């Protein structure tokens, strides 16, 4: 609501463009460093990989030969490989959703209801585990959730169950729990940072007008920190799509993900297929972002507020 009013009244982006020489638009100059990184470090290897994905495996040299074919892409539809894409994306979306649902109240506590010291302390607390090895943390979950783990021991000693609860570990539950525990800070930090967009005066004004806490939260706070929420969801989703640790350590027999599948394929030096998988992943995710942008008008989120 506030955003709509602003849109009609306030012109967008009185930025730097006006005063910089029109021959070298500021945007272009500013974009150079990041584009240089992307082209040099990202695009060139990716172009190589995409090219190689259309070549064929050479059984004589166990490498690739420039025989153009779609075989590796066709192979993506066999043997359940396509389901791996779907399941990994689904798991990542679930992790991102769960993380965001936990992160919004946590960020609310940090950004809205805490003084600077407590906010800094809480933020630090959320960040500290990330300084330890994710692999070791995921491994430790096996000891917390296992048949002889802490939770089962507690449940049994309290008499709640007689035999250990099996599905706590090596199940989708364990994987989700492990992933949320690992990636929650990715969701919290952007939202907390977005709280800088909120002016005290706006909150105070609405409170003066009689708005209760929840009204303020829903109509003022949430829309204003939406860029942070979207960014948090994106961060968790992206990291969750690319990980394999939690699934391998906490999932059931032979649980799969895109990363695990790529490693499996590389293990049999089927490079074209591995590269095809990577190309498809990048393409699909890019398309997903484009759709999300169109549907949710994401680019509007990062514009400035107010006058």
């Amino acid at each position, binding site marked *: 609501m506030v955003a709509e009013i602003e849109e009609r009244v306030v012109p967008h982006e009185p930025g730097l463009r006006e005063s910089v020489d029109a021959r070298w638009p500021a945007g272009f100059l500013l*974009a150079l460093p990041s584009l240089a990184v992307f082209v040099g470090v990202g695009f060139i290897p990716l172009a190589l990989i995409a090219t190689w994905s259309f070549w064929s495996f050479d059984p004589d040299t166990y490498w690739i030969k420039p025989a153009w074919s779609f075989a590796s892409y066709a192979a993506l539809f066999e043997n359940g490989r396509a389901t791996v894409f779907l399941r990994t994306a689904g798991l990542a979306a679930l992790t991102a959703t769960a993380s965001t649902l936990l992160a919004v109240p*946590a960020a609310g506590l940090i950004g*809205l*209801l805490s003084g600077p010291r407590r906010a800094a302390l809480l933020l630090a607390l959320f960040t500290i585990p990330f300084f330890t090895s994710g*692999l070791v943390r995921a491994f430790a979950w096996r*000891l917390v959730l296992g048949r002889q783990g802490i939770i089962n021991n507690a449940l049994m000693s309290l008499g709640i169950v007689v035999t250990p609860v099996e599905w706590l570990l090596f199940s989708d539950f364990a994987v989700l729990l492990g992933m949320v525990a690992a990636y929650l800070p990715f969701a919290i930090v952007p939202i907390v940072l977005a709280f800088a967009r909120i002016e005290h005066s706006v909150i*105070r004004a609405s409170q003066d007008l009689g708005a209760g806490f929840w009204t303020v939260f829903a109509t003022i706070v949430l829309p204003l920190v939406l860029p942070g929420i979207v960014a948090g969801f994106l961060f968790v989703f992206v990291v969750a799509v690319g990980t394999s640790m939690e699934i391998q350590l906490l999932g059931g027999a032979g649980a799969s993900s895109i*990363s695990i599948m790529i490693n499996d394929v590389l293990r049999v030096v089927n490079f074209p297929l591995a590269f095809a998988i990577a190309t498809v*992943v990048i393409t699909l995710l890019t398309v997903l972002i484009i759709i999300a942008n169109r549907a949710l008008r994401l*680019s509007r989120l990062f514009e400035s507020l107010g006058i």
Partner: protein
Amino acid sequence: MSFDAIVRGRTSGGRLLFTTITALSLAIMYAPVLYLLLASLNPDAQLGLVPPSRYSLKWYFALLDDGRLAGALKESALVGLATAALATPIGLSAALAYRAMTRLRGVFLLVILSAMFVPGTIEGLGLSATLRVVGLAPSWVTIAIGHLLWTLPFAAVVSLIGLSAVRPSTIAAARDLGAGPIRAFVDITLPLMRTNLISSFVFAFLLSLNEQARAYYLAGRQNTLPLYMFGAMNSGASPTIYAFSGTIIVVSVAVVALVFAGLVEQQSRRPRQAPGKTSY
């Protein structure tokens, strides 16, 4: 951090709900961490809990002798700092570029974000093949290059959020007072972005510290910390790796506690300021 407790007065259970969920989140995050801390005090070669009477610092002392771990830690710190030091300003420049553009901004952002979507193993492999051709020897430099691509989108988005909190009216006011665009940026925008830039730096550092897939293919002879952990878990870990996690936790918490105590002291010494900022 410059958050003030914005909402004062009654919160209709909002404070309670938020605190509960925050506590739950912290509990989930710290369950494995605390387990590791307690289990690292177990002198047996077993990852498990023992009664407090048997606690021992044996594996912590063994840590001091672990040269391989120290080397990996150093390498990771080097790579992480280099990555963060580059990703933060470049990410900021990307965010500024986005806001300065009009029509091409969507494509630009998409291009920058797409770097996040590349599976780590493949990127590492492809980049190492490319860097070979260029003739760059594998070392912490090559790992940092790979990690730069990985962390840049994150730093850019974080900067975007920070920039969106800077009011155009503030900049306009500075310009009205005669500041050029660069001056306005340096004197107004950057200080307002201070917290954000620090977060961006720490974020990029932590991302690099935990990244293993790219590092495997880009590393030279010295493994990074995640690679060391990965190898240790695969071929037989000495419990020193759990003591190492324990050390990180204890040191981090101690640092935070000290800073917190320092801030508390500072607050109590300064005369209390009038409540509520004046703002428009």
